[in-house]
């Protein structure tokens, strides 16, 4: 059992959990993920590590409530426990002094890019961060990322904060104004990462994306998370989750991530019915 030692609501549907898992905290590195299972009947679901404290023995994850499992997790409180919490999984991000590195985070991916921003800054990079969300109330980790960034930009779809539009618009502007960029790292919805990859490809800017396919075990055993990179099949859980974004078949990833949409909708409907019944009682 793994105790939730702190919980914070970052936005109405975005929640941060600090979970006690000393062994995981001890080995965690930027770019890695964990798999958790809430209870006996739960699914194994991967979450990218947003932060960790070796001293406190805690690992931080940020979740966006979209389906049954994330809703159920979102309803949990400080002092509650999740049944299983395993990691750190996947390869750590490659962190070196590349020169100028642009970190592009979208939605809940902003939390996942935070450890990379911090590590890249520590490695001596000039870090340019661009974070984006649908609206300003969904922007997270703003201050944390700003603190480690040499330049910092915000984009919101509705223009409620920063640039009205997409993170890719800002990246395009940076490129148009001849800003020298050595590397781009992007974490967010697959469609956003695809747009970023397509944008940087003609300029030959090395671009890395952190992929988020459906997983089961996370140790290379099942192949649920297979992705196509440069025409080859890779397992995101052990070969990734970060890959050369210019070689990733994002359309394939998007199609495979929709495998269980109907089942996910049914699960969520059942959960909502059950919880609303509880509220009425």
């Amino acid at each position: 059992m793994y105790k939730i030692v702190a919980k914070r609501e970052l936005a109405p549907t975005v929640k941060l959990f600090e979970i006690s898992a000393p062994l995981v905290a001890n080995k965690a590195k930027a770019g890695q993920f964990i798999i958790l299972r809430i209870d006996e009947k739960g699914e194994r679901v991967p979450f990218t590590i947003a932060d960790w404290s070796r001293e406190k023995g805690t690992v931080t994850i940020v979740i966006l409530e979209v389906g049954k499992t994330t809703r159920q997790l979102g309803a949990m409180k400080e002092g509650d426990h999740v049944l299983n919490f395993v990691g750190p999984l996947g390869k750590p991000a490659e962190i070196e002094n590349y020169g100028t590195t642009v970190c592009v985070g979208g939605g809940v991916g902003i939390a996942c890019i935070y450890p990379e921003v911090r590590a890249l800054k520590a490695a001596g990079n000039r870090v340019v961060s661009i974070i984006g969300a649908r609206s300003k109330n969904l922007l997270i980790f703003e201050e944390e990322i700003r603190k480690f960034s040499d330049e910092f930009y915000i984009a919101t779809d509705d223009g409620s904060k920063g640039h009205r539009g997409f993170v890719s618009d800002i990246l395009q502007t940076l490129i148009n104004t001849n800003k020298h960029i050595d590397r781009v790292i992007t974490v967010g919805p697959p469609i956003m990462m695809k747009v970023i990859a397509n944008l940087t490809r003609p300029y030959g800017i090395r671009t890395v994306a952190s992929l988020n396919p459906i997983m089961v075990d996370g140790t290379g055993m099942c192949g649920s998370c297979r992705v196509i990179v440069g025409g080859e099949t890779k397992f995101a859980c052990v070969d990734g989750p970060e890959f050369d974004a210019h070689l990733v078949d994002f359309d394939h990833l998007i199609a495979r991530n929709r495998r269980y949409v109907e089942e996910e909708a049914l699960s969520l409907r059942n959960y909502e019915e059950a919880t609303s019944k509880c509220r009425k009682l």
Partner: protein
Amino acid sequence: MPEQDPKQRVKNFDEVPLGYSLDTAIAEAKRCLECKPQKGRKICVDGCPVGIDIPAFVKQIKEGNIEGAIHIIKKKNNLPAICGRVCPYEDQCEKMCVMGVKFEPVAIGRLERFAADYERERGLNVPEKPVSKDGRVAVVGSGPAGLTAAADLARMGYKVTIFEALHEAGGVLMYGIPEFRLPKKIVRAEVDYVRSLGVDIKTDIVIGKTITIDDLLEEFDAVFIGTGAGLPNWMNIPGENLSGVYSANEFLTRINLMRAYNFPEYDTPIRVGKKVATIGGGNVAMDCARTALRMGAEESYILYRRTEKEMPARIEEIEHAKEEGVIFKLLVAPTRYIGDEKGWVRQVECVRMELGEPDASGRRRPIPVKGSEFTMDVDTVIVAIGQSPNPLVPKATPGLQTTEEGTIIVNEEGLTLKEGVFAGGDITSGAATVILAMGAGKKAAAAIDRYIFTKKCG
């Protein structure tokens, strides 16, 4: 042995064979001729990878002393209810049985299962705690090899900790073998028995990630790696990454370990269509094809590139699959999968095969017949063409060397090229059987005992 009716059993996940009654077991045991040992060796025991004293336990059953029988079995085998179900006994102990020359061999496997079930249903006996020995051993992986090595070492008196990556112990016994062939409550009971010997089992720990082998060596006197063959093989043909194409591992893990057959009560989903094709001819392929029927498939096909004679699956499994309505398409190999606009598999293109000269495996090599391509409509495909050793631990462990096939290099005793590190089971042999992995676990346990003794005293 009585079995569930095929028409009924395809609608449930309950166990297929129902087991012997006491009377049937005694009657079966009475068929044993009690052959005299030849040059001090009992021939049926020679066929057993863990060396159970078979004539002795069969004699106890013959005399109605089932507790005596299980006591004899457990001297060598800590997982008898599992072995009594999934061992390929027809190729091992029963193959050696003299009765088999003219008649049916004594059903040694079924008798083992009977004795184990008889004891479990009446409450497991826990052996007395041995004198504790000075030494701690870490076991990586809680499948058949790891459980056996751990149990043997615990019975010798060592302090043993098993590390398991998944959330439940048992390895392939939990995720790989379906409920209808090996009920999970039986695996849990035998895992609990191993715990009762004093073995500590820590789940949710991925060795190589959460803790490394080098970390373990700082705390433990020796390490045994039994991480199995968990890496699914693929044919690398077009369309293999379409939605609806599963590896056998994913398909079985979702269903067995995550209980997707109880979705949405359990949260893990699985999609099984109306027309399911399983690629392969081994026991895992049979498990998948039979599971597909239980998940509601209307047509469940086995596509196999040789003939039934060359199939690696046990005859019993092939027969069970046929009885349940699995359709065998033999001398057929898939060449590509065709998907719809949403990326879901809709058809498989196959080519017919003919058998040529024998290959390295001794079986006649299948050769594609030119121009014989045809397509079949399918909406689910399960690729069950074998597993390779799981590379996670070898990759994360400096000094541990592997072959080209990815198996960890060990000597006869299971010692790797890294000081204090032993390995056994599918991670050293490549994908094999539960009982061979157990045999390797036993051998390594004995070697670890000698190693620690020499280290501490020599």
